[in-house]
């Protein structure tokens, strides 16, 4: 049986007395696009740095395509494209020269690099900058080149650590489009991407793994997020400003798990059917004027982070 493209087994990383990754085990399915979510300091970047051989785990193992990254980095990282944080490039090289260097390191012939370079630069919208020195590039431009070099030689695994970090909104959207195109056009491609942006993960990923305090707290299909444990989120709008009394009345409903005030909105997390909630909210006589679907990923994320605090 083919191994999972990425597998973490009891991974642990300590810095002095601080545990950044704590017994983390996670299997990434082939051809999935997994979003790695978690608050600052949750251990996302540390995990990805272990996976890309930038740091060694204190204990446990990280495998890529069946190879232990710490023991066999050359074999493990073959066919893997990475963008970790915002990398810097050799400023004295141009993007074309950089691709030639990286391409040579991974075993591409000069002809293969040349033919892919124009295509990739077009994809990340950097064609006009192909022969300019990288030392003159802005952070956003370097991030595009970083994504470009990760695409060299059509990798089967791509590891991205906040790939849209530092980009302006248009740049972010363009990078997301590149990633969507990749998913659509490539048959054998597994992507792991850490991100702070829940909507980005919701937009791109089909799997979500959430970590907090270095531990895995959730790992499932993104479609399962909204229905996991039967929990749903609805946002209630009322004619008058919501108050604590109204929140109390909503909480009194037996199947309502939590009610929060979010500005003029009332966020209701509940188990059961929506129709029951609709009729009960109407019956409570709290001046409801709208009930819409809430952000289930955000809701789930906050719930899990709260639980594992």
């Amino acid at each position, binding site marked *: 049986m083919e191994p999972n493209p990425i597998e973490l087994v009891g991974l642990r990383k300590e810095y002095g007395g601080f545990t950044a990754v704590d017994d983390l085990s996670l299997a990434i399915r082939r051809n999935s696009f997994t979003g790695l979510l978690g608050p600052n300091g949750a251990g996302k970047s540390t995990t990805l740095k272990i996976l890309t051989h*930038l740091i060694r785990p204190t204990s446990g193992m990280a495998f890529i395509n069946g190879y232990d990254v710490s023991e066999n*980095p050359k*074999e493990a990282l*073959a066919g893997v494209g990475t963008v970790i944080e915002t*990398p810097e490039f050799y400023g004295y*090289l141009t993007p074309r020269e950089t691709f030639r260097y990286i391409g040579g390191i*991974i075993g591409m012939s000069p002809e293969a690099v040349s033919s892919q370079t124009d295509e990739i630069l077009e994809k990340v919208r950097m064609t006009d900058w192909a022969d300019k020195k990288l030392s003159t590039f802005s952070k956003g431009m370097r991030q595009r080149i970083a994504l470009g*070099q990760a695409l060299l030689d059509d990798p089967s695994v791509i590891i991205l650590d906040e790939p849209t970090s530092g980009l302006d909104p248009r740049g972010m959207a363009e990078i997301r489009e590149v990633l969507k195109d990749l998913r659509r056009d490539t048959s054998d491609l597994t992507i792991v991407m850490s991100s702070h942006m829940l909507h980005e993960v919701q937009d791109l990923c089909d799997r979500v793994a959430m970590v907090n305090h270095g531990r895995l707290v959730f790992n499932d299909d993104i479609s399962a997020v909204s229905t996991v444990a039967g929990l749903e989120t609805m946002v209630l709008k009322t004619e008058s400003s919501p108050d604590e009394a109204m929140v109390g009345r909503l909480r009194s409903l037996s199947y309502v798990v939590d009610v929060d005030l979010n500005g003029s909105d009332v966020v209701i997390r509940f188990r059961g059917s929506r129709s029951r909630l609709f009729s009960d909210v109407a019956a409570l006589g709290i001046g409801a004027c709208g009930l819409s679907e809430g952000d289930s990923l955000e809701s789930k994320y906050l719930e899990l982070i709260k639980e594992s605090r």
Partner: protein
Amino acid sequence: MMTETPDDLTQTYMVAKNEVIKFLRSRKFMLYGLLVVAIVALMTLLPYALGDGLSGSGGDIFSGYIGYASLLVLLGATLFASYSIVSEFEERTALILFTRPLRKSTIFLGKFAACFALTGVVMVLYYAVSLVIAFAVSGELVTSFAPSLVMCLLYVFATTGVAMLISSVMKKGGTSAVMTFVTILLLISVVSAVMSASGIDTWFMLDSAASSITNSIPEYVASSNDLLVQVGQELGVDMSGSMIEPADCVASGGAMAAWGLVTLALAYLRFSRREF
């Protein structure tokens, strides 16, 4: 279909080639080149500007130039090798290179090869130019240069090792460069001087071993000792204790090779454990 990753030797060559390009396109290399040219120009033209011109045997003229060889080697180590490792971390280029399918040993060897080759080639050219000038002025072909050149290249090896060790520990390239220069020029010399004062033969110290670059040239030893005798006679002082001994190339060469090997091994150990 996945491309086959090249063997370690091919990857070492690629890393070394990129390092050489990095240095050749940098201001540091321009500065280094200017310094070498300035030394050759001053040594050659200044005597003529002052009226005397270059005189003496081919060996005397040649050894005059080679007197600056160890300083040029030190500058090479300071400008290139001292930045080689630390720059990957300081400039965050490690995030691109280290995440690729190649071993840390490959990266290390590639960087070492580039630093050694660059300074080594400059020194070979410096020797060649010195030989040509000595021949042009004296009409004599200095044939005794080979041991000195070998000692010089061993000194390049040793100083590259020291510089890469410092580079593997430091967090800033500038600090690494200053520490390399100070360590080789000052700290090691201070230790040697203190040991000598305590009656210890310091043949194994890097600065003592490096003196073989000039002391392996017979003409240099002879003319230096002649000068010492002449000065001693003028001052009425016995200078026999200060006479220069011809270099023991095996001992000095062995010492420099050991300095290079030990410091490179320590540098690699530190580099391979260094995390981003």
